[in-house]
């Protein structure tokens, strides 16, 4: 036993040799190659005379257009389509290339790019502590670095950033304010009517815009069949740009350009697919989802629970027009409005719900009882007044909300996601409530 330990030890010693050649498959050391790679990436970024157009796709959703101009002093000048000011005025900040786990591009002081990542929710409308889940440190992978296109991946959230070498005209579009002018499109939110239409090359589209998530939905009819197309969008030298183009027969729409906005007449105009259009309003959907209202009513009946609305009705351009958020019951504050179908064989419940803080529970104090709704063949739903529950303060937010609900023109239900609907007044489409 003792000897065998010795043999093992000697054996180990025998394996060592004094040859110390460091032959590797590479001619240079990893550090030399790493430094060369960092230098070449920086050179490529700097030596684009008109800078780079960029689109970032934050992990939190959406797509945002940028323009970067890098210099060899670790400085970068940028524009961003996030807001009017950042599209019109350049901001200078710093960047550096650094070897982390991979060669990385770091925007290392605050810039328009960081606005998307900022954890302060009032900066970007994202969640407190998270922002829009975007990035400002990016890994560089050699196989995604081409002469004119560089695709980068965010180190924290894996957002994608695509840089495309800009030409002089594109750089000028930023400096002369024409990209900023494209943001006139955002005025589409100032139309008071829910349904908006455009006509391009003889095709009428209903256009629905979600500015927070940067999503455009286009709906059109072929015969009587409704078709829908949804894309994310951003603003750049080519105006409003669809992330994926719409190909509709012979027509291809890649985005919109040449924006005009008249605040007095509330009229937005632009071009798309080579044609000019103005945004017009409609009081009903282009393609009515005939089964939507019944589906909306049935869902809580089948799954239990009720529809909730945090803000009540939006009317004539005013969110929470009846100020339901200001409702109180004693010292209990308003929590949300509910619509609960089939509470009773005879009636449903439409009522504000209050939150009792000490007991941490919800309380129904008063409300309205619509009778069983009428589902009209044209897709509308009409709520008849059956009665009320408790003592509803009159006049007041609840009384006003109910008066609108019982409007004899009824409502269209627009399904906006798996679990959300907008209920839009069929009278003029200027009033709606979001159910979730």
């Amino acid at each position, binding site marked *: 036993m*003792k000897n065998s*330990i*010795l043999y093992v*030890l*000697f054996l*180990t*010693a025998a394996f*060592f*040799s*004094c040859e*110390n050649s*460091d032959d590797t498959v590479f001619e240079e*050391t990893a*550090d*030399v190659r*790493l*430094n060369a790679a*960092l230098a070449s990436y920086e050179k490529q970024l700097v030596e684009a005379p008109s800078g780079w157009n960029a689109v970032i796709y934050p992990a939190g959703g959406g797509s945002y257009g940028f323009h970067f101009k890098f210099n*060899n*002093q*670790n*400085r970068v000048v940028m524009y961003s389509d996030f807001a009017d000011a950042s599209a019109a005025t350049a901001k200078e*900040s*710093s960047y*550096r290339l*650094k*070897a982390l786990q991979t060669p990385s591009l*770091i*925007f*290392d*002081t*605050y810039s328009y790019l*960081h606005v998307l*990542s*900022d*954890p*302060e929710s009032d900066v970007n409308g994202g969640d*407190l*502590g*998270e*922002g829009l*889940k975007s990035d*400002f*440190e990016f890994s560089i992978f050699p196989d995604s670095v081409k002469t004119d296109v560089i695709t980068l991946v965010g*180190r*924290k959230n894996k957002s994608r950033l695509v840089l495309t070498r800009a030409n002089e005209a594109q750089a000028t579009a930023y400096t002369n304010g024409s990209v900023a002018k494209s943001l006139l499109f955002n005025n589409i939110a100032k139309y008071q009517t829910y349904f908006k239409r455009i006509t391009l090359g003889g095709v009428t589209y209903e256009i629905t815009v979600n500015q927070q998530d940067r999503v455009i939905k286009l709906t059109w009819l072929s015969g009587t069949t409704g078709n829908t197309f949804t894309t994310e969008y951003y603003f750049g030298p080519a105006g409003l740009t669809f992330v994926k183009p719409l190909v509709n027969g012979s027509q291809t729409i890649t985005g919109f350009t040449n924006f005009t906005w008249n605040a007095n007449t509330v009229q937005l105009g632009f071009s798309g697919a080579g044609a000019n259009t103005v945004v017009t309003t409609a009081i009903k959907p282009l393609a009515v989802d005939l089964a939507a209202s019944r589906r909306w009513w049935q869902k809580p009946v089948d799954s239990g629970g009720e529809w909730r609305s945090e803000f009540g009705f939006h009317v004539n351009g005013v969110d929470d027009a009846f100020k339901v958020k200001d409702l109180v019951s004693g010292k209990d504050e308003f929590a949300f409005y509910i619509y609960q179908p089939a509470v009773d064989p005879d009636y449903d419940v439409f009522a504000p719900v209050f939150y009792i803080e000490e007991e941490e529970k919800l309380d129904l104090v008063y409300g309205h009882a619509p009778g069983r709704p009428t589902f009209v063949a044209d897709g509308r739903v009409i709520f008849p007044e059956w009665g009320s529950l408790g003592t509803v303060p009159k006049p007041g937010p609840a009384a006003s909300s109910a008066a609108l609900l019982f409007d004899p023109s009824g409502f269209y239900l627009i399904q906006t996601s798996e679990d959300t609907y907008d209920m839009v007044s069929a009278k003029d489409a200027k009033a709606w409530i979001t159910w979730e």
Partner: protein
Amino acid sequence: MTMILLRTISKLFFAALILTATLTSCKEEEIGEVDDISGLGGDTWVPGPIDKWIMDSLTIPYNISAKYKWDQFEFGNITKTLVPPDEAQVVPLLSTIKKAWTLPYVQEAGEVFYNKYSPKFFVLSGSNEYNAEGSVTLGTAEGGRKVILYGTNLFKIKGMAGYNPAEDSSFVKDWFLHTIHHEFGHILHQTVLYPVEYKNITKSLYQGGNWINWSDEDARRDGFVTAYSSLNFDEDFVEMIAMMLTEGKAGFDKIVNSIPEGTSPRGVTKAQAQASLRQKEAIVVAYYKNTWKIDFYSLQKRVRGSMNKLF
């Protein structure tokens, strides 16, 4: 038995010696191209006006450096979402700290004292750090050397766009200046401990981790200057330093005098609470005098005086 064991050991030892000799005889000629290791010696960039300001105003006189360019690994919790500071905020923030912390200590206690004990490395985050339970991290200090300050982009003093005296002066006072005076207090008492009598003043009333459920007003009724003071002796001591310096003498007197009549839920009367705070004040003042040869009230005047010029 013992003999055999000894022999075994000696043989093993001998073998090990030979082995060592064999190994060391393989001499490495060189260790490679060390001077080319990327990032060795820290990040580099083309220095700008901010770098020059930090060099001239903090590094040369006080051997303090400040990192304002993003480096994820300076921040303890890499899962948090933070953003770097806006360059326009860096000099205003650092010069405020210099005016309301560095200069008062240097003027009162001298450069030798300040350069010996001050933390040497500041790291700035542009945003706050939000914690899951809803709280916000204002600043952290590590080992008396490194201080992280959050919320740089939210910092505003007189003369900056959008300055709102009602909100911003208390934000700067309660966040940035309170934090740095608090952390420096820790460095001082970790160097020379305060008199043990301090611990006896409100000994039975410390809350430990439960401090978070108390308001400052509640804590003052028990003789603590802030709720955080009631965590433990050391925090109590440095909270006293930070509050007395940033509030000034008049501000501190106001805090003591504002304790309401009656007995606190823990059985402390108004007079007892006020007496506790006054005893703590006296020990802090004596500690500065006896240990550091610093006139605390003069220091307090300088700190508060410089703050009055900022807001």
